[in-house]
């Protein structure tokens, strides 16, 4: 009997609580969505498995409260001590996430995958990427009104930027205790872009507006000048924009600077293609694995099962919807004063979620007119949305830190 009792104590069976089971269920649902439904599988699957690892009692894989690693006099335990006392997941979290390292590294890879060409060809459409950031700041106000602290509210609002690494970076800086739920909400809603954009667009865009044909408008009101050397422009652009944004919003440099660097090494061409391949391949993939697992590991039952998580889930959705609506109404406003009409779907893609938002908007436009291909125009506002959300994050961080 004593042997059986010792055997039982050796297992984790005695430590499993109903909260543990709820967290396992959440993890299984996320795994189902990632594997079966294909919702952002590259990030949702590592996050979901990180949740599972963190909630195996006795596994020492859950990220611990930062107060536990804090020493007297604003000093912290070193990484060896963290690994020794709290396990390897905490080592990874405090070295890669808490330092803010991984989101800019991922942004570098995103930069390689980004093509500023559509934006340079349709520069005016870039302004809709600014209008679509309204969701971030509206939810900031709303969240403060319902009891979130300004730092928590800013981290919640940034979900409206529809940019995973930006949301994670901002939350690490402002409200690291909410990292798990915010990352889950951000990536879940990004995966639901094919549902959310049509939902909001059909609410606010008329049938006539859906059929505004951008190519016809282009023929009627051609651009004042054409781009004779797009390659040179695409090489100069990231250097110039990086310098400008660093001077005007220095706190956006870790994200924007790395994005623009990644873009530059792609645009330079064959001489830096090895760097570009590394940035968008092995480096980005490795960063994504560790980001997903460690963010998931922050979601222990005691952190996740709270009222604030519910607030984040609801608030994140509203932020997303307001951002889409903000872009749509900005286009409508421009259309009031301009002869050259713009399809409001282009405004709807002003939030990040590149390129899925553009693809969804294009498909929606094609439903109303089979010849109305608006993908390249959507990409212009979509890419500017990435810049816009990184700038918004920079503003929030510099004001609230």
């Amino acid at each position, binding site marked *: 009997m004593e042997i059986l009792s010792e055997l039982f104590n050796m297992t984790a069976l005695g430590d499993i609580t109903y909260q543990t089971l709820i967290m396992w269920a959440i993890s299984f649902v996320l795994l189902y969505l990632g594997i079966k439904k294909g919702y952002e599988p590259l990030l949702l699957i590592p996050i979901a498995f990180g949740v599972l690892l963190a909630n195996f009692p006795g596994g020492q894989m859950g990220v611990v409260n930062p107060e536990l690693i804090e020493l007297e006099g604003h000093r912290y335990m070193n990484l060896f001590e963290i690994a020794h006392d709290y396990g390897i997941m905490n080592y990874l979290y405090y070295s890669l996430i808490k330092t803010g390292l991984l989101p800019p590294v991922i942004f570098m890879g995103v930069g390689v995958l980004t093509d500023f060409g559509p*934006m*340079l060809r349709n*520069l*005016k459409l*870039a*302004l809709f*990427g*600014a*209008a679509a*950031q*309204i969701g*971030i*700041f*509206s939810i*900031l*106000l709303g969240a*403060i*009104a319902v009891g979130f602290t*300004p730092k928590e*509210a*800013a981290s919640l609002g940034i979900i409206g930027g529809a940019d995973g690494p930006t949301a994670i970076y901002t939350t690490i800086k402002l409200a690291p205790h909410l990292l798990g739920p915010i990352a889950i909400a951000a990536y879940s809603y990004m995966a639901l872009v094919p549902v959310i954009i049509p939902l909001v667009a059909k609410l606010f865009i008329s049938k006539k507006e859906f059929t505004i044909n951008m190519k016809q408008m282009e023929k009627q009101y051609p651009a004042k*000048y*054409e*781009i*004779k*050397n*797009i*390659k*040179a*422009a695409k090489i*100069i*652009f990231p250097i*110039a*924009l990086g310098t*400008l*944004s660093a001077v*005007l*919003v220095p706190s956006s440099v870790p994200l924007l600077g790395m994005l623009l660097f990644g873009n530059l090494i792609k645009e330079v*061409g*064959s*001489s830096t*293609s090895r760097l570009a391949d590394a940035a968008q391949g092995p480096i980005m993939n490795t960063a994504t694995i560790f980001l997903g697992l460690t963010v998931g590991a922050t979601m222990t039952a005691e952190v996740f099962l709270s009222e604030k998580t519910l607030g984040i889930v609801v608030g994140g959705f509203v932020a997303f919807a307001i951002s889409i609506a903000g872009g749509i109404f900005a286009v409508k406003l421009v259309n009031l004063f301009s002869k050259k009409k713009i399809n409001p779907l282009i405004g709807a893609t002003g939030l990040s979620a590149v390129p899925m938002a553009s693809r969804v908007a294009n498909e929606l436009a094609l439903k109303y007119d089979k010849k109305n291909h608006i993908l390249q125009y959507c990409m212009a506002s979509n890419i*500017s949305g990435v*810049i*816009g959300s990184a*700038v*918004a994050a920079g*503003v*929030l961080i510099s*004001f*609230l830190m």
Partner: protein
Amino acid sequence: MSEALKLMLTGMSTVFFILIMVVVLGNIIIRITNRFSVAVVDHPGAAAPSQQEINPLKLAAIVSAVEITTKGKGRVTLVEKINE
């Protein structure tokens, strides 16, 4: 709450200002490159015989596609429209 409102106004103004600057900067870069650069393709002399027949944007797309698929080793020497 008034602080949050102030942050909202500051944030949105900054985002708009930066993206207006992006538009201005983009226009300046395009004007400069239009003025000082001569070639549409990055390999001078390439595809010269058919440049007048093909849309420069299409030509740039073909050159980019060849560069990406051949990892910079391939060169576009001639782009010809075949009339069947």
